């Protein structure tokens, strides 16, 4: 079994409201990818709670860079779930 690492997961705006939490620490396997991350979040928060994170218009940023494809998590990574943005 791969070694486990801790990552920080942030939820913003409507997601923060939907989930009722802005930040959680999560145990994931070293080099976990997108689906591993979502599995770990489902374990932690429950299927229903995770549903909003799966919507098509939600972006994932790893260490503040939007990742459109897959990724490999490392210890201390900051993962953020971002609803559609609008400034100005």
């Amino acid at each position, binding site marked *: 079994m791969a070694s486990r690492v801790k990552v920080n997961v942030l939820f913003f705006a409507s997601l923060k409201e939907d989930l009722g939490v802005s930040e959680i620490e999560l145990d994931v396997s070293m080099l976990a990818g997108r689906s591993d991350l979502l599995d770990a979040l489902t374990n932690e928060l429950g299927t229903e709670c995770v549903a909003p994170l799966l919507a098509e218009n939600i972006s994932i940023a790893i260490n503040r860079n939007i990742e459109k494809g897959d990724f490999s998590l490392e210890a201390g990574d900051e993962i953020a779930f971002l609803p559609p943005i609008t*400034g100005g």
Partner: protein
Amino acid sequence: MDVIRVQADDFSLATEYEACATEAGRDCGAVAAFVGLVRQADDDAKVVGLHLEHYPVMTEESIEKIVHEAHQRWSLQHIRVVHRTGALNAGSQIVLVVVASSHRPDAFAACEFIMDLLKTEAVFWKKEIRSDGEVWIKSTAGDYDRRDGWKNTVASSLKR
């Protein structure tokens, strides 16, 4: 050095304009400025205020990227962007962009470009607090059209 600030506090156009003029120096012939405010009226329901959320560091970096692209497209002496976060009442100032250039076409284009890209590319979330409830705002089709319009203008053809 350009200035980018994300802050809860209000800002002063007067202060930013003076600072811009000082930074821009004696070749400056044109300063274009924009201030966005919280409108009270939006269709039928009254807007009581806005709640603006951001992602520290990522938000600033997203603005830096926009400002950097403006410099690549036009001849600009100085750019200042100030964007507020938190709870803002109707009538409050939200965002300020000030751009200095030798020539007015560059100053106008860059100021409008930066505002257009802030709408779709800057990492903010905006919730309208309305008389009939709260709504997280999304960029409109018009916002995306305006952003995409800039993609079709080749940077080199704009640069003097």
